């Protein structure tokens, strides 16, 4: 039984703690390392491979490590397990932030990190540099994907490119009368689909608003949706606050979005090709398109954890997932451009690589790949400071209200 005396004592302790707290140093000491001056912790690179440890723990996007449980025809995990003896345990993550958090636990061996997570993982020493000599299939990866700012530091590769693609606009063909061709459809304050619009539940979605403002309000001068100064950032946040009135729900759990589109609770909103595939396979009348403004997108990289307990199997997995056949399968299932040039010959739809512009670098110049926003503007501006990712996350809570 809690006596009054104990309660008073507890309250007093609390008060003393608070006073002590108030007297201390209250300066905000959080610092962000810039991309230019990125200091990378020394993590050793693996020099040779052993037999494999019998299993491997992956953090992956939905649809990246299919073992036939979603669709019996879609399975590139089982052949890998048979060939290498590495049992695959997959943890599906809904957002890049979740991936960073999961990898920091040290319990996972490899991760399919997007550009808004990879640099954070490198800077915190969570992932190790990758010895590409141990990944034979790396030789066939498109040159346009190798040693990019989001998968390497100072020319040292930190991962194996997996594929790339765009965030698309999805709608219910029976509920949305005219097929939308602009992101304006999800930002228009007078939308007839009020309460049925859906949006991605992550701070990085602010970039989608910024991308729309690039063409809708050119006077703001946004060049890169991940390099926003305070004025541009406020405009994007303002747009998203207007959008909140239209949104029925925010999604980060892909099964939730599939169900919402199937039942008609959501009729219009941002999506991934794999979600559209799943919804269509469950007979939901949905269609996707890349709007005329272009889109945000991802370029994913398989990285190996610095404290990986099964590094040999992780390397074997990285080599497997960019092998022509597996890379073609995963690219077709997820709906993204493959990383391996030879994968284009292995796709079941022979025009697949053309449809997804796998070799078309000018197309991908219109897709703005997820990148972690930092204080030094990524678009090269020196006269202003840009809004960093921690402000993006706090703004995201404010946007949702």
């Amino acid at each position, binding site marked *: 039984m809690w006596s009054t005396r104990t309660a008073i004592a507890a309250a007093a302790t609390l008060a003393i703690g608070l006073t002590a707290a108030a007297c201390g140093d209250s300066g905000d000491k959080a610092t*962000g390392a810039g991309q230019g001056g990125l200091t990378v912790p020394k993590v050793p690179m693996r020099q040779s491979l052993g037999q494999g440890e019998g299993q491997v723990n992956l953090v992956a996007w939905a649809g990246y490590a299919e073992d036939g449980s979603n669709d019996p025809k879609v399975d590139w995990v089982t052949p890998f397990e048979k060939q290498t003896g590495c049992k695959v345990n997959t943890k599906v993550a809904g957002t890049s932030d979740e991936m960073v958090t999961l990898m920091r636990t040290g319990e996972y061996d490899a991760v399919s990190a997007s550009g808004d997570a990879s640099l*954070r993982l490198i800077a915190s020493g969570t992932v190790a540099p990758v010895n590409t000599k141990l990944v034979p299939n790396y030789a066939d990866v498109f040159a346009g994907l190798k040693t990019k700012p989001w998968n390497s530091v100072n020319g040292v590769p930190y991962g194996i490119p997996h594929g790339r693609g765009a965030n698309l606009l999805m709608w219910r063909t029976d509920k949305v009368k005219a097929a939308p061709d602009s992101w304006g459809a999800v930002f228009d304050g007078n939308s007839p689909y009020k309460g049925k619009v859906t949006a991605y539940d992550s701070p990085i979605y602010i970039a989608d608003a910024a991308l729309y403002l690039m063409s809708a309000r050119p006077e703001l001068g946004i060049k890169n949706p991940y390099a926003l100064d305070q004025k541009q950032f406020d405009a994007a946040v303002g747009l998203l606050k207007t959008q909140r009135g239209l949104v029925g729900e925010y999604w980060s759990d892909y099964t939730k979005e599939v169900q919402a589109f199937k039942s*008609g609770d959501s009729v219009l909103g941002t999506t991934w090709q794999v979600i559209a595939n799943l919804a269509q396979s469950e007979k939901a009348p949905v269609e996707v398109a890349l709007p005329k403004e272009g889109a945000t997108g991802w370029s994913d990289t398989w990285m190996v954890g610095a404290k990986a307990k099964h590094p040999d199997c992780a390397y074997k997995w990285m080599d497997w997932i960019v092998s022509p056949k597996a890379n073609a399968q995963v690219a077709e299932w997820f709906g993204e451009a493959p990383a391996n040039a030879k994968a284009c010959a292995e796709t079941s739809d022979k025009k697949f690589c053309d449809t997804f512009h796998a070799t078309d670098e000018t197309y991908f110049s219109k897709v703005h790949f997820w990148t972690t926003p930092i204080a030094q503007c990524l678009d090269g501006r020196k006269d202003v400071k840009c809004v960093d990712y921690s402000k993006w*996350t706090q703004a995201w809570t404010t946007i949702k209200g």
Partner: protein
Amino acid sequence: MDDDQGLTAGRRPALRRRAAALLHRRPRLRLSLLLSAPLAWLVAGYLGALAAIFVTAFWTTDVFTGEVVRQFTLANFQTLVDEPVYRTVALRSLGVAAAVTVIDAVVGVPMALYMAKVAKPRHRPYLVIAILAPLWAAYLVKAYAWRVMLAEGGLVNEALKPFGLSGPGYGLTATVIVLAYLWLPYMILPVYTGLERLPDSLLDASGDLGARPLRTLRSVVLPLAFPALVAGSIFTFSLSLGDYITVKIVGGRRQLLGNVVYDNIGAANNLPFAAAVATIPVVVMLGYLAAARRTGALREL
């Protein structure tokens, strides 16, 4: 040699006897030895975790790498106070918790009263099992079942259609309904126990003195059952205040305190700020418990 062995053998039972005698003479010592293990667990595992939350709330995270910076700052609490959104979310969470508690009380008290005083004694165990049965199903299964029922064209909408009505859709109303459903057993059981202890003779006496049933309910049953009701409300209130899964599933675009904590851990990887947010429900619950203590409800737990 022999001598020595005889001595040791003779001393040991003496020591044991003396220890036993000491423990017999000092019941407090006996009690504290008995309780030290569970108490150590309570202090280290439970209060220790609370203290860790509180300390973490004064740290920050490195923006870029996400590492926790162990340096004292009030910045997290500053943000909590300065940003109106956190006040809105806190008040919204309180409102949801209060609404769930009121609904559970209104639904739960008649059910508990029926179980304790009206139903035949041999039926009571079965009624208790019926109340407990939903707790055997997983929380997520029940929440997703409600998501499907509340969906467009779902069971709720179809059932209301003949009356020209439609369901609440996903949002705060849906959240309150689902939470009230989930936590109802936690309200019924303490109230049932409280009412069962109420002697029937009091009800008879009230009747003999000319009170009608409603008057008996108001002047005899409710005052005596009130501590039990408060005890139940502690469960429903605290469980609702900390929930973040139900609102994610049926809450539409709404967020509660639990979601802000979750987003700051899961998405933003800002453990210190999450800890700062988590102190809000802790403080609210301490206040609630202090108020509940006055009614004697803690004795009903």
